[in-house]
């Protein structure tokens, strides 16, 4: 096919014009399409974090109080399976020496050595579970939450090997028969073959509610907020009290802080 330079320029010009019109066409097409958006009631943050005041928990809470654990596990339909290998936990109690290994010594106060610490997913800034997940079923949200997409989880359990805090549990069996609390009909269960963990109650934040554990604690030992906001409650606590985090030497940068 023969073509003059003039013709070539003409066609080129027409093409450029067409490309230039693309944004207009797109904008026009968009108006017709359904739109999605977050709920206007949703709580938002640059980066979510939690400060757990264990002193407050032990001093003000009733002995053996498990309000926060029960609230979480009933809201999320977490089953109660009694064997250590198969148990499912989103938030649970741990002894100091297990929660903070390497930071213990023989002469710590009795209280610290004996009393239960509240532990949950740390929503690390640098989460090893996300790095190892082959399907991106677990991923980091912009607001710092380490999220699970159960629909993508293939149950390979790499994330459980990756997590240094034991915050992830595998469903070795159908969890439904083991749900002891009244079923929360608004939240799904999980099924055999997926890994689950705490999600900082993403589904509650999305409708303007604080995490279930925070809301359930009557002595205000759990504080939740935006760690990037210098005026937030969590930042005030972090600025005024000495806090520690679990296994800081690993460089995962947990978002859960402890006052002991």
């Amino acid at each position, binding site marked *: 096919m023969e073509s003059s330079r003039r013709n070539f320029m003409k066609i080129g010009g027409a093409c450029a014009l067409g490309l230039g019109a693309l944004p207009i066409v797109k904008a026009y097409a968009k108006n017709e399409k359904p739109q999605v958006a977050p709920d206007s009631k949703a709580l938002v943050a640059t980066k979510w974090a939690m400060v757990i005041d264990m002193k407050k928990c032990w001093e003000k809470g009733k002995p053996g109080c498990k309000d926060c654990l029960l609230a979480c596990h009933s809201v999320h339909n977490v089953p109660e399976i009694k064997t250590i290998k198969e148990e499912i936990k989103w938030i649970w109690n741990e002894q100091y020496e297990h929660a903070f290994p390497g930071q213990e010594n023989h002469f710590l106060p009795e209280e610290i050595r004996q009393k239960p610490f509240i532990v949950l997913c740390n929503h690390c800034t640098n989460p090893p579970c996300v790095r190892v997940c082959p399907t991106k079923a677990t991923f980091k949200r912009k607001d710092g939450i380490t*999220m699970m997409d159960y629909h993508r989880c293939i149950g390979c359990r790499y994330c459980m090997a990756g997590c240094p805090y034991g915050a992830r549990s595998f469903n070795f069996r159908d969890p439904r028969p083991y749900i002891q609390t009244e079923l929360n009909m608004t939240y799904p269960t999980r099924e055999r073959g997926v890994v689950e963990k705490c999600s900082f109650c993403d589904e509650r934040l999305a409708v303007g509610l604080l995490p279930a554990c925070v809301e359930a604690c009557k002595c205000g030992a759990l504080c939740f907020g935006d760690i990037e906001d210098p005026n937030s409650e969590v930042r005030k606590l972090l600025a005024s009290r000495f806090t520690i985090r679990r296994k800081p030497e690993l460089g995962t940068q947990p978002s859960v802080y402890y006052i002991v």
Partner: protein
Amino acid sequence: MKIYNAKPILIGLAIFIGLATFPLWFNMGKAAPPPDPKLDTPVIQRMAVKQCIMPKDQMRTEHMQLLNDWRTEVVRNNNRIYTASDGKQYNMSLQNECMNCHSNKSQFCDQCHIYAGLQADATPYCWTCHIAPKENK
């Protein structure tokens, strides 16, 4: 033309044709009734204008895709509110939105899915995790 061993061959042929067409005549006159999804749930009965999220025909063919998009938006993009093309807003939730209106899963969703031959024990597999509405069957 002469067929050698005509008798056994013809008998064999008859048996073969009988067997090969077995599925056809076995199901003769027993065509599965077309699905009849029921819309008589309390919530839908109370609606002034009975309409779904998209027009009915579109819902019929695209609801799986819509659910897939909802799931992605909610779980991965943290968007929860869907504004349909007619301006109505919906909470993008299988359990709390679709099934709030279509609370008769066995008379509605399952009707079509069983007819279409989706796996019967898991029509579709969402319900191993998502909690189906309670129905008084």
